[in-house]
């Protein structure tokens, strides 16, 4: 076996490290970039990278679902929420917590700004502690669990869709159905909350001016 052959056999590993770097860097950037839309698009990149890792593992169905659900649905929902929000409101607290951002609020008084800065630093410290503690617990749990080493099942010849389908409809039927009921409940709950808020606002308007509400409703639908 020549050195070139060894190189080729190393390619999947190399691919994993490249994808891993992309995922980690883009996940880091989600928290680092100043513009919140950029953060959302970096999240898309991280999700896509995870799908790439699934492809390397031979889990094609999982990769497809990952892209469909995370890129096609969740990330799009994030982007929607960002794009219909008031951007000044979104970027306000972020600018205050940064070391440069608090300077812009200096006219309020030096003492106040310094107090805000120490408070922000305390929060950062607390968040760091929580993160370290959580990471420690997770790592300890993983180390203790002694996960079995399983080879990639794609080699068995059956497509992954068949394997997943069989498992889902036999062994994991109840958990799967329970999960869908939970999601349905969340969906209904979200609709109820959104509808109630709308109704409250509509009633408030009606108290102010009876004619305004109907006109606003028409305007609101088409906007």
């Amino acid at each position, binding site marked *: 076996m020549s050195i070139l052959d060894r*190189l080729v056999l190393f390619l999947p590993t190399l691919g994993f490290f490249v994808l891993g770097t992309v995922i980690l860097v883009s996940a880091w950037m989600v928290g680092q970039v100043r513009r919140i839309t950029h953060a959302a698009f970096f999240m898309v990149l991280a999700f896509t990278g995870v799908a790439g890792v699934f492809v390397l593992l031979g889990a094609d169905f999982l990769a497809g679902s990952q892209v469909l659900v995370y*890129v096609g649905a969740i990330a799009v929902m994030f982007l929607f929420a960002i794009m219909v929000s008031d951007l000044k409101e979104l970027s306000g607290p972020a600018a205050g917590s940064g070391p440069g951002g608090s300077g812009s609020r200096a006219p309020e008084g030096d003492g106040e700004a310094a107090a805000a800065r120490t408070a922000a630093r305390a929060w950062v410290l607390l968040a760091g502690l929580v993160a370290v503690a959580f990471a420690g617990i997770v790592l300890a749990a993983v180390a203790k669990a002694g996960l079995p080493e399983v080879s990639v099942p794609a080699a068995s010849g059956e497509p992954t869709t068949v394997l997943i389908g069989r498992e889902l409809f036999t062994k994991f039927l109840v958990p799967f159905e329970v999960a869908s009921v939970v999601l349905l409940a969340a969906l209904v709950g979200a609709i109820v909350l959104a509808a109630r808020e709308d109704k409250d606002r509509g009633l408030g308007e009606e108290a102010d001016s009876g004619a305004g509400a109907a006109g606003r409703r028409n305007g609101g639908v088409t906007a």
Partner: protein
Amino acid sequence: MPADLGAFLQGVFDQVHLWASQSPFWSALFTLGWGIVKVVLVLGFIIVNVLVLVWLERKFSGRVQSRLGPMRVGRPHGWAQTIADMIKLLGKEDIVPRAADKALFVIAPVVIFTATMLVYVVVPMGPRAIVSDLNIGVLYLAAAASFTVISVLMAGWGSSSKWSLLGALRGAAMLVSYEVPMVLAVMGVVLLSGTLSTNAIVKSQSGLWYILVQPIGFLVFLAALFAELNRVPFDLAEAESELVSGFNIEYSGLRFAFFFLAEYANLLALSAIAVTLYFGGWQGPFLPPFVWFMLKTYGFIILVMWIRWTLPRVRVDQLLEFGWKVLLPAALVNLAVTGVYVLLT
């Protein structure tokens, strides 16, 4: 002669493949080289067909509106009009608005074109003429469509223009809400054929086209397809008369060419997918499979254009109501009935 040539090429291919499979390195190099050949073939296929499609659309809309369409460039019937337009487009100044979010603005055309190219991977143009017959073909198609939504939002937001942002939000809302009935409608076909692979779906239609057993599913799919293609009656993301051109309004020159190319490449790809899922794909008597595939696809494209140039645009609220209150229940009923049928037989 063509059959001889095909057999000869097949023989050469098999020899090279056999020789390359001796060592991992040459095998990997062979895969890479063959992959590049496929990409070049598909790119050529897309560009030639897009040139034809743009011309066809202009001629067809001319017919519908009782005029001639392009006549001057190239005789007969202005066949060279799109080529001239393309050259003109490439010579245009490339403008990035000062207020634009430059990174997103530049990346968006690339993402939308890549998303469209992804679809061609699973389009079966003949028994063996498919880039890669993925096991998860249909799921892969839905996943590839996700990137279209992302790129529309990227372009709309990145342009920092109210028209493009409105267009992008409308477009994304439409794509997201019509993706659900579309996938559910296609599930009917998947249930009947018992596979997600596009080529296997074509093969399972040797007796009966799925449009005959899945008429409701097909209608839901067709309606969702128009939303996916951004075409009248669901062209709210572009809406020339109200949003000027929607999410891609700030683009010019080569970058606009990417959007334009992606739009027509998408029309071709989704029409090919519709033919694959409901009209027996490349199957047909007498003629070679590829000819059948092209005939059916162009027939379907004519149908899409016919609808585009005869119907008015719907309003946003009508669009969303139709999607969630008509298409989704219809798709669910269709899926349930198909499921019961498959269970019983």
